[in-house]
């Protein structure tokens, strides 16, 4: 019987981040507003 010396990869090929993480990123994007004033950029969060 052939021996398999290679280890099984622990990484599941179909790994995805949690839905909450995606949701957080999208909400962050919606809340973030960049305001430009005389070459200066301000970040503002609109909750």
């Amino acid at each position, binding site marked *: 019987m052939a021996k398999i010396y290679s280890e099984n990869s*622990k*990484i599941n*090929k*179909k*790994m*995805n*981040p*949690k839905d909450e*993480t*995606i949701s*957080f*990123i*999208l909400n*962050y*994007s*919606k809340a*973030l*507003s*960049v305001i430009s004033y005389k070459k200066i*950029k301000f*970040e503002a969060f609109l909750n």
Partner: protein
Amino acid sequence: MRKKLITDATLVSSYIKGDESSLEVLIKRHKQRIYSFIYSKVYDRDIAEDVFQDTFIKVIRTLKRGKYNEEGKFLPWVMRIAHNLVIDHFRKNNRMPKFQNNGDFSIFSVLSDTSLNAEKTIIKEQVEEDVRRLIEELPADQKEVLVMRMYQDMSFKEISERTGVSINTALGRMRYALINMRKVIEKHNIILTN
């Protein structure tokens, strides 16, 4: 279905113009590759989530500040950010990979706190007190040798010089002292372990 055909560059462009839904499409399109890449480096789901989140926070800030230039492609750019954040993560943790306990082996089975807790300190004191009482019961010559050897850390040569007996006699007295102590311990079922 229609959005599948839209290129990354177009989606990035419309996101910069204010179309938030374009970002959602981009994330959904690439999340698996980016997340798997991060996980393959950090081997920890929670850290991978954090790095993934920080990657997109950086992406969002760069895009909204208008600092993104479409020289390269969107995915390699995001992967580069993720890669840099993974490096930052390991730098922050002093380049020490996190050890995770799995079912087969626990690091705490080989690492332990060597200092005694309150209970063990009390037991140790009791054991030492019992041993001292046992020594008191020994014949004077044996007790003298044992105390010099064990408590004063003297060599048998020094003991023989101090007591005026030969080294062999000192050794013999030590031997009988231990035999006698063992007999008493066994006879009275004294437990001297912590």
